Every structure is written in C-alpha cells, then in structure tokens.
C-alpha cells in the first residue's frame, strides 16, 4: 500500500517542482516582452508572436511533468506487479 502513497507524493511534488521552474521562466520571458513593448510599441505584434512561441516552448516542460504525473497516478506501469506482490 505504501507504494501507492509514495506514488501520489511523487506526482504532487513533481508537479510542484515542474510548475515552480516553469513559472519563473515564463515570468522572465513576459517581463522582457513587456519591457520591449514599452520601449517600442510599434513592434508589439512581432514581440507578441515571438513571446507566444517562447512561452509554448517553456510551458511544454511543465506539460511533460503533468503527463508523467498522470502516468504515475492513473497508468502506473508497476501497479499490476505491486498488487501481485501484495496478494502473496
């Protein structure tokens, strides 16, 4: 049973760590984009597009963590083995 408790803890902490780093990264990107638009409002369209691509790239890291967390929670590959060991 402990295995499943640790799985949940791992998923939660992993998601927290993943979104922590991604949050800092996206914040830095948006900060620079805001500064750029403030200095040169004419380039806002181009800055917006570039920022969107960059944000999507950064965000995919958090998405990978999310997918791994979902695999740990709902599609854990070791569930069958652990249940088998428990039933012994």
């Amino acid at each position: 049973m402990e295995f499943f408790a640790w799985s949940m803890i791992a998923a939660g902490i992993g998601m927290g760590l993943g979104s922590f780093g991604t949050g800092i990264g996206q914040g830095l990107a948006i900060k620079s984009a805001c500064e750029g638009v403030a200095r040169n409002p004419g380039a806002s369209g181009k800055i917006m597009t570039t920022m969107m691509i960059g944000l999507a790239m950064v965000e995919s890291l958090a998405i990978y963590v999310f997918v791994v967390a979902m695999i740990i929670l709902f599609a854990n590959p070791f569930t069958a083995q652990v249940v088998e060991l428990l039933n012994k």
Partner: protein
Amino acid sequence: MTHPFLVLQWLAEKLHLNVLIHNADSLKAVVYAWLVMAILIALAFVAGRSAKLVPSGLQNLMEAIIVGIEDLIVETMGPKGRAYFPLLASFALFILCANLIGLIPGLYPPTANLNTNAALALTVFVMTHIVGFKEHGFSYLKHFMGPVLALAPLIFVIELIGHIARPLSLTLRLFGNMYGHEIVLMIFILLVPFLMPVPMMLMGVLVAFIQAFVFTLLAMIYIAGALEEAH
C-alpha cells in the same frame, strides 16, 4: 476522469447503435473528431454556397478568418508559404474547433486524446520532410550535416534527435493542455458544481485559442525551416 454525460453516446444508446457505445477513449475521440469535421465542412459549404463580391454575414466572417491566417503565414514564412495555406489553415481551424467544443457540456474535445494529437503532429513531421525533399532534392540532407563536413556524423545524430523531438513535443503540448484543462474542470465540478467552474471555463477559451495558435505557428516554422537553404 470520465465525462458524466456525452451527447453522441447518449444518442447512440437511444438509437440502439451498439457499435458506438463501446466507451473506449480513442473511439470517443474519433467520433467527436468526425463531429468537428462535419461542423467545419457544413460551415464552409454554407459560407461558400452563395459567394458574393460584396460579402455579408457569414461569408464576411469566414473571409476575415481566412485573410487573418494568410497574413500570419506570409508574415512568418514569407510569400513562399502561401502554397501551404490549405494545410496550415485546416490545422488552425480543426484544432480551434476541437478545443472549443470541449467547453460545451456534453461534448468531448478530441484534442484531449493522445491519438488525435499524434496524428496531427505526425502529419506536420512527414510534411516537413516531403517539403524539404521537394524543394531541395537530395541536397536537403545538407540541413542535417552542419557547416563542417568532418563534424557531419556528430551533428547528424543531434539533428535527428531534434527532429524526432518535434512531433513528440507538439503532441504532448496540445494533449497536456487540453487534458489538464478537462481534469481541472472535472475536479471543480466534483467539488462545487455551481458557478465555480465558470472562471476555469473562461480560461479554457483562452487556452483553446492559444494552443491552436501555437500549434499552427510551430507547424509554419518547421515547414519554413525545411524551405530555407542549408547554411
């Protein structure tokens, strides 16, 4: 995390079409992907049936969307990119509609399933290399070689990994966003069924537009990368 109620499954049950009731996740996505396709085809047919020189109503809206996508393509890929307009516009419209129907209660967004997204991303992947070979012939392989011939084997491996990571990241980004949104919505509905999910649904509109935009933009950039000359 399953939907409590889905319109097409309910309809199939009422009509005794047992083939469609198997609640396999991928089949659900396929059924709703066909629904999105039907909506888009019907919309295009209605808008284009009586095309006038001075557009009004639906035709006006569709023309605005088409011109917007074309401007974006020309801005990112240059005038050469116009040839790939049908593919890229289909991606944009299909993904946008597929994301947005998830916000209607009783409908399931097909992009919240890994298989739909993998199909879309693999189309981009294959199309990129077809375009590259068509444009450059066999000198397209220079894209993978890097500037110095002596380092070619090393760079080839790195480029290969980079190219294989592209469909993976395209798939997982769209899937993670849509599936994550679904799960958050389900959890909020379980906790507080009244009014509480509305802010999350508003954010879902934003996510739907941004993800459709990002997918299309990345597809444009990958195809533009295959079009340009090797350095």
